[in-house]
């Protein structure tokens, strides 16, 4: 499934000490692996193999067990996400109102498919299942901003805004 080349691991010592604190917090908690993985993803943005190894060592379980859980849940990502995370809701309410056409427009605009990241690392695209804003269907999210009642025509302008903000920095 993972098509991307291996990304060089760039974790810092500070991130590692944060991770160790998370592991310590959940070490003796029954079923603590999930909260640790969630904490680790928050710290690193994704779960590279190096991080999974640290978790396995810290919780005293096998790497294969960590990998098994990390790959089971769609929330966990083994590859880095873009600077701007775009998700198009493909829940039923959005789908019957044309969310698939919105997703198509985003894919065309960025030249990537759902689940991928642009080469410059600026945008990653995912389709999600229902964020619960069905009153605004179809819905697209960029980072934490929600764009409701979307049409494919609006896609260009919205993404350009983020691309421009990136250029300005």
């Amino acid at each position, binding site marked *: 499934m993972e098509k991307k080349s291996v990304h060089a691991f760039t974790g810092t010592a500070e991130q590692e000490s944060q991770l160790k604190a998370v592991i310590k917090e959940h070490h003796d908690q029954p079923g603590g692996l*999930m909260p640790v993985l969630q904490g680790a993803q928050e710290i690193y943005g994704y779960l590279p193999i190096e991080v999974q190894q640290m978790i396995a060592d810290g919780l005293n379980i096998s790497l294969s067990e960590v990998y098994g859980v990390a790959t089971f849940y769609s929330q966990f990502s083994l590859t880095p996400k873009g600077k701007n995370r775009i998700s198009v809701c493909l829940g039923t309410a959005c789908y019957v109102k044309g969310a698939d056409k919105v997703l198509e427009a985003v894919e065309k605009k960025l030249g990537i498919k759902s689940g991928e990241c642009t080469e410059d690392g600026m945008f990653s695209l995912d389709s999600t299942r229902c964020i619960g804003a069905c009153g605004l269907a179809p819905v697209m999210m960029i980072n934490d901003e929600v764009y409701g009642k979307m049409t494919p025509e609006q896609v260009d302008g919205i993404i350009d805004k983020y691309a421009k903000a990136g250029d300005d920095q």
Partner: protein
Amino acid sequence: MMTIEQLNKIKEEKRELVMVRKLIKEQGEEMAKHTGYKKQVLICGGTGCTSSGSHKVIETLEDSLKKHGLEKDILVVRTGCFGLCALGPIMIVYPEGCFYSQMTPDHIERIVEEHLKNGNVVKEYLYQETVHSDGSILSLNETAFYKKQMRVALRNCGVIDPEQIEEYIAVDGYQALAKVLTTMTGDEVIDEITRSGLRGRGGGGFPTGRKWAFAKATESDIKYVCCNADEGDPGAFMDRSILEGDPHCVIEAMAIAGYSIGAQKGYVYVRAEYPIAVKRLQIAVDQAREYGLLGEHIFGTDFSFDIEIRLGAGAFVCGEETALMTSIEGHRGEPRPRPPFPAVKGLFGKPTILNNVETNANIAQIILKGADWFSSIGTEKSKGTKVFALGGKITNVGLVEIPMGTTLREIVEEIGGGIPNGKKFKAAQTGGPSGGCIPASHIDTPIDYDSLIALGSMMGSGGLIILDEDTCMVDISKFYLDFTVDESCGKCTPCRIGTKRLNQLLEKITEGKGEMEDLEKIEELAKHMKSSSLCALGQSAPNPVLSTLNYFKDEYIAHIKDKKCPAGVCKKLMKYEIKPDLCKGCTLCARNCPANAITGKVREPHVIDQDKCIKCGVCMQNCKFNAIEKN
């Protein structure tokens, strides 16, 4: 530790403040005089309205109140969902009960100046249904959307501030727990719940009291109470709204369940995709602990109970009870065979009960008002109310709570306000990827657990998606199968391979390559998946296909025999053509075609090259002469 006297004291102190929002105008105005606030402004801070920008409205309002020196006279309350999400952000002003809809920060200054300061309601910003033709203003409960609703599970949503435990206490919060702990035995509680006729609101409809009785009967020093808040059905958001609008009602119900079966610990498993719900629930748990309503010796009794929140990580199968427990244990969320049932051997191998959020939201009311009150609502075998997330092709998209037995027609035509754009109602989909559809011919069916099963659908958790004539039933079945293919955990073969094969057959049909014998294959495969899959995900995955095949077989046949999609959705079966007699040769379509598929000379009829056409429909949108048709 809190005593019952202290609980009652908080209730008395805060009661009038909250009751202003529940009373009819005159009484509310009288009561408002005792609260210290001239007016109260309630703004929805649920996910729907927050997505429409309600947080910006609240900021602007607070700034404006300060500017006018009104911050001590006007109380701003951030509530949970009012229900009418399509009109968000929603703002209600009490004691008048004025319902302002689709608020933006630009509206605020005028409302503060004219209404909050000078007492003149800004009628043009009100939800127009609440403005009577003679200029008088209706209360919310008189509008078509709310009139037929009955709020039991949602009773506090949109009324209280969910981040203030005292507001929950003001509306009888934790009184049911106090009653149970001091005057009832565990068996009496279970008996009351059993007699109420409450059935699980998460989908299956298993009698809640019986579930509790099984867990009580199992001997064990440790037992668990779990709450399923992993609302994975796409298009359903009832549980999220309850957690966002009234989180304490879930905590109280879990403690009551814990007392009655003899459990000391509870887990809430909630979707990580619901950040607002998670945050409010955590605040609620922290406050309950601080007030001694969770923890050791609650109300000075021997009963101790605490709750931990666990986040899901985006796996639909974890809504299944055994998978959910496996996930809390920190493993891949795969289901396990039953028996043993969780009431005997559940979380960490101990007796466990699992109730859904909406089920929990009914518990305290049943204890306070009695089983007879609850069982007087609804139909013979389905008691109480049901919350539905009404979505899709319907005017009033939002959250509705209706007594069981309300007909689909009442929901669609009255509460839902009908289908937009003058389109025709085609079907309603319930139960999401595990459910089926109710066609227009059965629109007068009273909705309860058993009538939906009889129609080949199911109650599900409460997603109710309205489909109109532009929806292709084969395509929608394929949409659900795409979903189950993605979400099948892969543990058992009938589900892992069955969903994939079923999806391939549907893909074949939507691409115009289907044969009549594929329909038989679908039915055969579906039968095996239903009988041999390990959990409900695989057992119910064929339902959307079987149900549409039952009611809309002609549509399947049109795809197979005529190679046509009657609703004009399936791209591979669609053809855009230019009618030569209407085409003026203006070249607009050719210039806009992204695939360069249209050719022709100026002022002469153009032609679409079907091999190049990507069926995007841009030509049809741009044509000023209606010369392009879709077949």
